[in-house]
């Protein structure tokens, strides 16, 4: 069936809430499905005990989800905008991420944090940032970052069933992107990368919106006879190192493309992983596509300047082919 990314996430929530009565959703304005429609209509099927509109109290939303998760419920938190996770950072970084480890494995923490994120339409500095790297840097959290409706549904379902905390990064620009979603209930495992387009010349490892920009770049480069392989890790933690390495063995040249800023990013980690696993296979230094090291500005020309796009991927591919 054809579904957009947002509706695919909605379907995943419905399926998991039907399957497991312990699953509940919590967030600000989620009863009406705000801000991006993902939770729309859940209230009609599951009622107010399982679709909880919370006050604007991010620390209590995330903290209470932790408390519920370690005592038998399965919360799915809507972070509204990933930028606001800063308001619950102790809960994520010190409580949720560390509980299993510090307490010697006594506690399960089956908690999902849905993280709508990314640049889009002049959201400005408090509503546009790619913050996935912060969580890649926090041992104890799993990080999923789907690019297609099918992956979004499959990864969210897996996240909800996982006994550990999982953050699902949902790029805001993808919500209305339509794609094929299997009729059957297909789960996408964490730690399983996907080759979105095969190619023999250059591997582009890309996440979320940059998968689409990289596919566009690949289409344009194919017209010049350059065959780009686009690999989507789909989860950053755990990471499918083998699929990345297998791609490098075919192409010997690598570009890592992400929307986050260049410095200390998830892409920097991916580039290092490729370097460690495949150094002898590489025919050129790894190139990176990322945003410059600034907050996301408001004005459209500034925003499009910092927003990585297909042209940047093409330039990087040309660079590694030199």
């Amino acid at each position, binding site marked *: 069936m054809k579904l957009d990314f947002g509706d695919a996430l909605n379907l995943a929530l419905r399926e998991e809430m039907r399957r497991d009565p312990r699953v509940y959703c919590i967030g*600000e*304005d989620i*009863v*009406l499905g*705000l801000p991006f429609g993902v939770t729309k209509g859940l209230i009609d099927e599951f009622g107010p005990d399982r679709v909880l*509109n*919370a*006050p*604007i*109290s*991010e*620390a209590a939303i995330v903290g209470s989800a932790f408390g519920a998760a370690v005592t038998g419920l399965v919360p799915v938190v809507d972070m509204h905008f990933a*930028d*606001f996770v*800063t*308001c619950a950072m102790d809960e994520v970084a010190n409580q949720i991420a560390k509980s299993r480890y510090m307490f010697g494995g006594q506690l399960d923490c089956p908690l999902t944090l849905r993280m709508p994120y990314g640049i889009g*339409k*002049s*959201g*400005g*500095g*408090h*509503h546009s940032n790619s913050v996935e790297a912060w969580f890649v840097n926090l041992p104890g959290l799993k990080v999923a970052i789907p690019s297609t409706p099918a992956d979004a549904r499959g990864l969210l379902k897996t996240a909800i069933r996982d006994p550990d905390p999982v953050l699902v990064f949902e790029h805001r620009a993808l919500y209305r992107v339509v794609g094929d979603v299997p009729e059957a209930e297909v789960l996408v495992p964490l730690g399983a990368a996907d080759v979105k387009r095969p190619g023999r010349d250059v591997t582009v490892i890309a996440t979320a919106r940059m998968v689409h920009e990289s596919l566009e770049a690949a289409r344009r480069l194919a017209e010049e006879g350059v065959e780009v392989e686009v690999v989507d890790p789909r989860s950053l933690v755990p990471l499918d190192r083998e699929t990345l390495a297998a791609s490098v063995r075919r192409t010997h040249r690598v570009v890592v493309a992400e929307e986050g800023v260049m410095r200390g990013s998830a892409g920097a980690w991916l580039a290092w992983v490729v370097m460690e696993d495949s150094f002898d296979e590489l025919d050129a230094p790894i190139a990176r596509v990322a945003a*410059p*090291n*600034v907050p996301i*500005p*408001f*004005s*459209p*020309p*500034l*925003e*499009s*300047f*910092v927003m990585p796009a297909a042209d940047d991927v093409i330039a990087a591919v040309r660079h590694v082919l030199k």
Partner: protein
Amino acid sequence: MSAPGPELMVEMYAAMLRVRLFEERARELFQRGRIPGFLHTSVGQEAVAVGVAAALRTDDYVLSTHRGHGHLVAKGGSLRGLMAELYGKANGICHGKGGTMHIADVSVGYLGANGVLASGCVVAPGVGLSIKQRRSGQVVVTFFGDGAANRGPFHEGVNLSALWTLPVVFVCENNRWASSTAHTRSTAGGSIAARAAGYGIPGESVDGNDVVAVWDAVMRAVERARRGDGPSLIEAHTIRWVGHFEGDPQAYRGKDEVDEGRRRDPIARLERVLTEHGRLDAAHAARIRESVVAEIEDAVAHAEASPLPRGEDALNDLFAYYPWAD
């Protein structure tokens, strides 16, 4: 209760009109695609912004919110600079980097709108500390919504300000809604003002559609702060006439509330009072409106004519000094 003098009342009338017409014009420009981003306007809530600003000196500070244009207009910010910023133009007050939700105009003490709710509540005690240690006699007002009042920084900021007797005025704009969530369904105990008692400071609930009542409450809070007696909390009850953001279908509320807001229009109300007391006649009111419209049209023309920033300007303004090319 003290009363503002007639000149001040006429000034407040003009100021409310300036906020109203600025916001209405911004909405229209947004609908026509001239202004990018998400737009939150304060139509209907003008008495709060203006009642507060009228009780402040130009060098007093304001910390604002995502619904902050009115606070800046009332504080005396440049309409040209503000409108150009809403347009994302290079000569906007923040060079197009901030936009509607992240504007500051330090020249009039406006230390910033905020895209993160309630964050100003913990910045305010720091501004208060600075005022106190510099012995400058200034005060700082921090605005926040009824929804934002449920975040931790509200409590931390009020506590610290009270504990250290800082010159801070906390102003909650209670417009009954936080996006689609009703105040009554998000706030235990109901009253924000009543929370002041727990921190041992004055807490007052005022009709936020009565600019004189707002002004009076803020005057008392400001005098107390300037005397060195510490912070106050004011909860101003008001009604937003428009969606939470421009384009909000408002499925969560009925039309009757907006009708109520319009019946209790703060501008019409002050106009009645001034007219009854012979302080304003139709001709004078028309002259005020004409000059406000002219100011706003000048700001729009300026914004339209101004250049957009160049893409690479995105790299400026990050640090005062950063010599490395890394």
